[in-house]
């Protein structure tokens, strides 16, 4: 299976135009810079609350969402900055949300875990583990009901696998052949608990079998491999053939949240995964296989650093939501 996957990825790689490849690089770079800056701002007290960073996992959000159309829906978790940015959100609006500002993507009411943009069809971060899967299933039901051509891409972590919501949603989505792609980001730890200490079947993609849907495991540190798998699943969903489960193997470069030093992981293990850094790896690929000049990539690095600096400035200078609006929007007529 691994070989077939690699061939698929290789074909996808050749299919992608240089502009697209650079866009993937740009988005991954943006997310990494963004998350590094968020960590810095968190340490400086500009960002508070729970904050779960996506550094290390960028290839999944960027690869998967590149495999979708703009009008397709994305449903996410509390580790969602990357998904939201990859879906096209303005870094300013996301950063301002983390700062709790009125200009934030959820008007300062959601915070890091509850980003939302209906225009981008980024349908929210849900902070109860597994909570997004039923929502994604329902969105897919609405698509099928309206006979629309869209699909839903639902991201969740390995920690969601033992939740009832996962099993109920896969059963329902398969039963009704709903256009949804379930993307499991397996970073090996649900907070600090190893997958094998939480789930009887460590090969998470095998949970597709009982639900009679395709299940694949991909290298989540390889943006092209993720892209190829999601493109295939999306095409299948669009043809009315139902859902797929994609397990993307990855690693978070930081702790579970900003308050977690990740002492349950060895330095050696962290080093091994740092060597598989999805951005460095993709950069090498672009340099050596596609003969892209280093200066082109360096320029992107600089541009994205500037974009993130601008986002911080915007967030910092933005107003707080007024206290007079505390009770607004609990109900529609408010």
């Amino acid at each position: 299976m691994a070989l077939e996957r690699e061939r698929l990825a290789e074909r996808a790689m050749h299919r992608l135009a240089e502009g697209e490849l650079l866009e993937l690089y740009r988005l991954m770079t943006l997310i990494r810079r963004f998350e590094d800056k968020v960590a810095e701002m968190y340490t400086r007290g500009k960002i508070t609350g729970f904050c779960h960073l996506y550094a290390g996992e960028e290839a999944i959000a960027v690869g998967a969402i590149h495999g979708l159309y703009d009008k397709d829906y994305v449903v996410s978790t509390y580790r969602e900055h990357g998904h939201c940015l990859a879906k096209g959100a303005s870094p300013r609006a996301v950063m301002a949300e983390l700062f709790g500002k009125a200009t934030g993507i959820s008007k300062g009411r959601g915070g890091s875990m509850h980003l939302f943009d209906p225009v981008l069809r980024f349908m929210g971060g849900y902070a109860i583990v597994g909570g997004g899967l039923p929502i994604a299933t329902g969105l897919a039901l609405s698509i099928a009901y309206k006979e629309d051509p869209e699909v839903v891409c639902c991201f969740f972590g390995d920690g969601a696998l033992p939740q009832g919501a996962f099993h109920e949603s896969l059963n329902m989505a398969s039963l009704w052949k709903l256009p949804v792609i379930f993307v499991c980001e397996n970073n090996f730890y649900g907070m600090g608990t190893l997958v094998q200490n939480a789930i009887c079947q460590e090969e998470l993609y095998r949970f597709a079998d009982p639900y009679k849907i395709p299940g694949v495991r991909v290298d989540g540190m390889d943006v092209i491999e993720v892209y190829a798998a999601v493109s295939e699943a999306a095409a299948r969903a669009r043809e009315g053939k139902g859902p797929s489960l994609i397990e993307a193997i990855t690693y978070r470069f930081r702790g579970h949240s900003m308050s977690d030093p990740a002492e349950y992981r060895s330095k050696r293990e962290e080093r091994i995964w740092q060597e598989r850094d999805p951005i460095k790896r993709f950069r090498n690929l672009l340099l050596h296989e596609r003969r892209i000049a280093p200066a082109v990539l360096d320029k992107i690095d600089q541009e994205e650093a500037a974009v993130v600096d601008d986002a911080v400035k915007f967030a910092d200078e933005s107003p707080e939501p007024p206290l007079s609006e505390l009770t607004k929007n609990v109900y529609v007529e408010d």
Partner: protein
Amino acid sequence: MALITYREALNQALREELDRDERVFIMGEEVGYFGGAFKVTDGLIAAYGEKRVRDTPISELTIVGAGVGAAMGGLRPVVELMTINFALLAIDQIVNTAAKARYMFGGQAKVPLVIRAPQGGGHQLGAQHSQSLEAYFLHCPGIRVAVPATAADAKGMLKYALRQEDPVMFLEHESLYGLKGEVPEDGEYLVPFGKANVLREGKDVTIVSYSKTVHDSLKAAETLENQGTDAEVIDLRTLNPLDIGTVIQSVKKTARAVVVYEGWLTGGAGAEIASRIYEAAFDDLDAPVQRVASADVPMPYNRHLEAAALPSPGQIVQAVERVM
């Protein structure tokens, strides 16, 4: 007007709204070919097909969550939970998603989802099938709580629920399904939320209730009339929004209040209503507000024990006597 049951009134409301709005669809356990565990959706699948009337697996959490997702996707789902007792399996999606999405996403999400569920005791169904859980949802901001007591309200309120934009817990009482009442046949008959109904005017005491115990309260009022006490009976119709204005106005007139409901006494909706009365009309009261509710016990199976656990017209009369 037609004399039909509470069940038929709900069925009629669903038919009319399915006809009116293509975005309306029904999903839940046994709502299709079985016709609904309480036959509320009887005949709908034959008339509207599997797309509009969808049988689901037994997966309450995902039935409700999918309802939320479908509502966000632009539809108007009516999710039936076979009984309110099963809502506890779905409470994460009800409380954490349906009720919060609009606010936590900065007012950008709409979840026009109606969750229908029968509740209540009185049929010897034991501890896990006899509960009245409205207080669980009343406690949570962001979700409307409708508790119709009559056939006409069942129809008008369900239709209204499907025309407004907030998520709604629409709680029907199992003992009321067979109750007949005059129901307008008008397809535009709507009963808006947040408007209590004064079912009986009186000057001596205010009895505040909703759902099935409205009828117990009316029975108690008849007994009280024979004893020379003139009771006003108010049906709240919805707990969220709560029309406390009508209650306060009445209490200012009668100076006495009894709150009647079938949930457990402790932490029930009655505590909230009594508090609101004290806050707004303390100086007008001639006696402490009394509550008549279910005993604080898991519902026993035995017929006599169950009857003793549930509020009754006799207990309402006694509560009124305590405030007179």
